[in-house]
């Protein structure tokens, strides 16, 4: 019997070693250790042994059983590991294969620029407000110190609906509406669509967007205007972008300034984009003309303020290096999908 046991142990150990799949191991386990298994059978046959041999043989059978079980377990773990490795290997895919086509979607680049602009000023404590696009001449021109038949109107070729109603030529009428209805302190930005009777070309569009800003408070200086626009330039175009103020004329500001930004393309070195000057003209600004304040019912001896206005398309063109303003209104998906 002992020999028989040794023979079983040897044979089983051998076949466990040779098993290639977890399932084989299970077969082995059943055939040896199962209810009808060989070893179980041997154990059952113990009754035929003389009683004094029984403990020894019992011990032996248990040892063999334990050895087989241990081996089975070890081999099972080994095989499982192997099988997992094989499965993982077989599951390898071509990661360079493009995924199923799915539209990513995007905002229009003009609005991407506008949202960024709004965000910058909201962060500086401005309220973003809107107003009508079809507007009274009174708000669009007269309250802004541009009376009827004033040549300053030439600079803004205007679409008329009737004698007193125009398509607003700038978002300044929103400022006029705010100034006539609110008391200082005022700190607003006015984004929106504006209209000028210009034929569309690489730099003009009869419909475009502006964002103007207005601050009215006590002791506001032109330095505050410059500081504000410097901060805007930094956040919009990056560190190292500064403003340069040049004297100019707008009927609703005094003093007025044309504001240049460091050319973001060459960072001021001078390149083709900035015609070698290192500066790009981007916006108009100035201290609100006291006449405008008075016309809007604000005490100009107590309050001062600044205003600025910028073209959103112009910002988008500069920020995204768009070569032609027409791109923005042609809605060519080959262009739009570049922003996804």
């Amino acid at each position, binding site marked *: 019997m002992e020999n028989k046991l040794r023979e079983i142990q040897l044979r089983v150990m051998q076949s466990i070693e040779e098993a290639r799949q977890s399932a084989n191991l299970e077969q082995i386990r059943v055939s040896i250790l199962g209810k009808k298994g060989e070893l179980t059978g041997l154990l059952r046959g113990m009754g035929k042994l003389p009683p004094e041999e029984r403990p020894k043989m019992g011990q032996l059978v248990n040892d063999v059983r334990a050895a087989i079980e241990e081996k089975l377990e070890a081999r099972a773990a080994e095989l499982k590991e192997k099988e997992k490795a094989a499965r993982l290997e077989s599951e390898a895919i071509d990661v360079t294969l493009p995924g199923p086509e799915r539209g990513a979607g995007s905002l229009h680049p003009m609005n991407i620029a506008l949202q960024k602009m709004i965000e910058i000023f909201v962060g500086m404590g401005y309220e973003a407000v809107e107003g009508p696009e079809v507007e009274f001449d009174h708000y669009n021109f007269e309250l802004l110190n541009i009376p009827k038949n004033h040549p300053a109107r030439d600079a803004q070729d205007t679409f008329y609906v009737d004698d007193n109603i125009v398509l607003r030529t700038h978002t300044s009428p929103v400022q006029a509406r705010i100034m006539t209805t609110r008391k200082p302190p005022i700190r607003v930005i006015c984004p929106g669509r504006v209209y000028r009777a210009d034929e569309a070309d690489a730099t003009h569009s009869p419909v475009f967007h502006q964002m103007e800003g207005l601050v009215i408070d006590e002791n506001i200086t*032109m330095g505050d205007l410059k500081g504000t626009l410097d901060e805007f330039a930094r956040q919009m175009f990056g560190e190292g972008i500064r403003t340069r103020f040049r004297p100019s004329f707008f009927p609703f500001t005094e003093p007025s300034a044309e504001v240049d930004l460091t050319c973001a393309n060459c960072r001021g070195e001078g390149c083709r984009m900035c015609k070698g000057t290192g500066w790009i003209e981007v916006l108009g600004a100035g201290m609100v003309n006291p006449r405008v304040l008075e016309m809007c019912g604000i005490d100009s001896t107590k309050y001062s303020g600044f205003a600025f206005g910028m073209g959103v398309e112009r910002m988008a063109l500069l920020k995204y290096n768009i070569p032609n303003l027409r791109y923005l209104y042609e809605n060519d998906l080959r262009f*739009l999908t570049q922003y996804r």
Partner: protein
Amino acid sequence: MKVPMKWLKEYVDIDMSAEEYASRMVMTGTAVEGVDKTGEQFDKVVVGKVLSCVDHPNSDHLHICMVDVGGEEPLQIVCGAPNVHEGMRVAAALDGAHLPGGVKIKKGKMRGEVSMGMLCSGPELDVPAGLYPHIGDEGIIEIFEDVAPGTDVKEVFGLGDDIIDFEILANRPDCLSVWGLARESSAVLENHFVMPEIAVEEKGTGTFDDYAKVKVLDDVTCPRYCARIVTNVKIGPSPKWMREYLYGAGVRPINNIVDITNFVMLETGHPMHAFDLSKVKDQTIVVRRAKAGEHLTTLDGKEHVLDESMLVIADNENATGLAGIMGGEESEIVNDTASVLFECAAFERANNRVTARKLGIRTESSGRFEKGVCPDTAMEALNRACMLVNMLECGDVVPGAYDNYPRPQETKEIDASVSRICRRIGVNVPGEVMEDILNRLYIDTTLVGEDTLHCVFPAYRQDMENEADVSEEVLRMYGYDHIPSTLMNAVTMPGYRNEKLVFNDRVKAALVGMGLYEVLNYSFISPKWIDKLNLPEDDARRNAVVLRNPLGEDTSVMRTSLVPSMLNTVAANLNRGIGEGMLFELSKTFVPAETAGELPAERNALCVGIFGGDADFYTVKNIVTWLLAKFGVTATIATAGDAYYHPGRKAVMDVEGKQIAALGEIHPDVAEAFDISGKRVYVAEIDLDALRPLEKDFYGVKPLPKFPAVSRDIAVVVDEAVGAGTMMDAIRKAAGKTLEDVKLFDIYRGDKLGKGKKSVAYAITLRAADRTLTDEEINNTMEKVLKALNTQFGAELRA
């Protein structure tokens, strides 16, 4: 305004390059468009002397000339001009010369004879007739002066000067003149401006009144009228310096009298007019408003019909010119003009502008009057013209002048505060420095005490009114580069976007998340595009805000719907070969006001457009449904909508009986009208103004379920016409409180079901929040559902 540097330098020292000067002017507020040179259109053209001129042996019109061009040897040049002759001084373009129009001169052979260059005519050099005597005549240019051969012809013609092209802003009409700019330059460069002393030498007998009569009948529209007479006029070319200045300023030289009026206009800013006095009827000039319907033919030969708002220059009977805009034909200066009446007047800005606009005329003169011409200096300008007559010896200036100036301009003066100016500009400029700057600008300023600047503005500075104006003068001269960069010291204010902007941004973000691209279209469209939508005649969308002066028909009315622009966008992309796309536009539509003179209503609108790919009706329906869901809104849907949608594939979505969206496939006829072919287009229109107030506040979460759910499938057979979604709504209603979810999972059509029938299968999930549902409860609910489907839709349980 183009100004030759030489002309400016007559009155102010400019000791730097034109570019540096231009940059100094720009940084102090006088914009410069560019710096050019006259005569840049050609080079290597020199004075040549024709030593001999013989006929070309192989030609009936060419000549072979030996021309001394200042070199060691004379050059042989073949010339075809009939006026070439021995001894003539000519303009010779040498080998390698560049001429206008991209012409390059090369030595070569003409009909077998060597030619080392070309003898030029005026047009070949693109120099105007009038710049040099006879330059406009047939043939090559003859140079009459004794100039050494080899001299650059630019010297002879007075070319090669730097021309500064100033862009004068609307507030500084005084700078639309050489004197004004010289004055401004002197302030910028801290130099002196030297104006010529104006002295007129009068000659002859009698005074103005003996020669002519002026009657100003409207001295409001014509606040000043000055006139003088010149007799014994000898019309001829003006001197070289004057021609050179005029040409540099972009004005064609004509003859001495006309040139004097143009020269004075450019130099002083005062438009002038010269009348041939003998052609002025009764030698009487009347300044009056036109009669309604009065006819007038202007110098350019155009006939105009006038109205009573227009100011005219007339004789005793008829209008002869438009005051300050354009003269008439009759009294034009001609070669035999013998006596001249010079007019120098001031006309009211707005009136001048309105008249010029109405008649569609824009002249140098009208442009100046509408920007503002200072009446105070009119007589000075007129005398400058007479002084030039003396200088040019082209006539006798009659003693005396006519001057009607009933209400001379009052001198404006203000007190400004140094400290307030400093606060405004954010720069601390000492009072003395301000005083000095302002005086340099000819603003007569005295610093009184420490803080008060007493400023007296010169008459021509019509833009100066208040302390803010003074602050700008100080700052621009002191230098804008001194402005510090500070952030305001003020109360903190909350920054935020208004509710509508936030809402619109959320709508856009949701659509972008669903893979749509935002497009931008013009707000104005063609009324024809609305026609293409096949709307009923009385549809409100046919009533649009109309522009009075559109750029063209395609942009002439404000949009009442975003759909036409969307369809054009789709068509454009299909034309570009882009086969599919998902687009949206969020913009305004404009509804005309019911009362005239009121502003239109501006509606916040959204349009979705989808084409190509595997898109169908349900793609666009899902987009709308999901968008509404973002705002906590569920809508009911029914087949309905505008005729521009496919009759069987269109729907409107309502919330509480109010339409919030319309959607569907575009009708093939409408698609065709918009040049869309080969692809179906799906459109949705969402009324954002209606959606925004429906948004439900997020009030808290439902507790997570504690008890198990059960699922039951049900398949029913119904008529084809029954809406699967409508049945779903009925299931929801019938199942009651314990319904957790219902999903449609199969629609089957087959012979076994019979024609016009379909089987629709739903998976129904039931759950109670407080207990495990019993079989009995579940069966009851399912029976109710089946019964509801049966009674409402005739549905039978599928066998």
